[in-house]
């Protein structure tokens, strides 16, 4: 078994209101960052997990997302690459 570090991004499903994204984008405009047109805010998780290889690590993280980490009603998730930790 090797330790892998896997990053997961969990974002609000497109179409749902994202008040945090809107608040950030408003605040950026107030600060003068006028070129910003859209902001989405989600969660970023970094998990260290032991697995036989990178694919197995990502598959395990996929199961974690389905069971716990993301809410299937409101969120999409994306699993990054598995790096040796």
């Amino acid at each position, binding site marked *: 078994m090797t330790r892998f570090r896997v990053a997961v991004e969990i974002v609000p499903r497109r179409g749902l209101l994202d008040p945090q994204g809107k608040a950030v984008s408003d605040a950026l405009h107030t600060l003068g960052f006028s070129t910003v047109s859209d902001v989405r805010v989600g969660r970023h998780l970094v998990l260290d997990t032991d697995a036989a290889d990178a694919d197995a690590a990502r598959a395990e993280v996929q199961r974690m997302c389905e069971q*716990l980490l993301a*809410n299937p009603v409101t969120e999409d998730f994306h699993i990054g690459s598995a790096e040796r930790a």
Partner: protein
Amino acid sequence: MKVGIIRFPGSNCDEDAYHAVVDHLGAEAVFCWHKDHDLQGADLVILPGGFSYGDYLRPGAIARFSPIMQEVVAHAKRGAPVLAICNGFQIACEAGLLPGALLRNDHLKFVCDQVHLRVESIGTRFTSRYHVDQVITIPVAHGDGRYTADGDVLERLEGDGHVVFRYVDAAGHVTDAANPNGSLRNIAGICNSAGNVLGMMPHPERAVDTQLGSADGLPLLHSIADSLMSEALV
């Protein structure tokens, strides 16, 4: 009637529910520990408010995996009543006992206030003691209360009369200003299709005593007691 109040790590309205049931409704109540598998013969299960597991990750997401939740789901499947308040509502949605999800309030702040609710359906076992379109005063206290569900789920809830409470103004009108969290269609409480699980963000257990500002939550508890009584008679 015997009421089982589930105690998760981080529950903090468990004692309030206990006092509402015991001191104001006059029924028996027991606490059920999250690590146990025992509902202690409860007729009604209350999933109380609070911050189970700190609401870290997502409100209700971790609590739904507690051992006791298997029993709560089985209890609900049998058609027995479950009252899910605030964090309890969030847990019930995560556990699939109720459709939809509760998201961060649209204004991104926690909100604690007395709000007005309109009773949308008196045909449920939770609302028989109210009258149609009655406007009641019940407090809210939450940061993640914005009810969201897919369009077809919302249509089904509406069509079946399963939207139980809606946020309204004092005159009973559905307005944006009366909506404390941005919930779709001002939804404050819903029940499942079998009609035995009620989820609501407002706190009926905090509205059982005029000394506290309102006793409008008491008829809800009485309605459940009535329904259990009539079941027992059948």
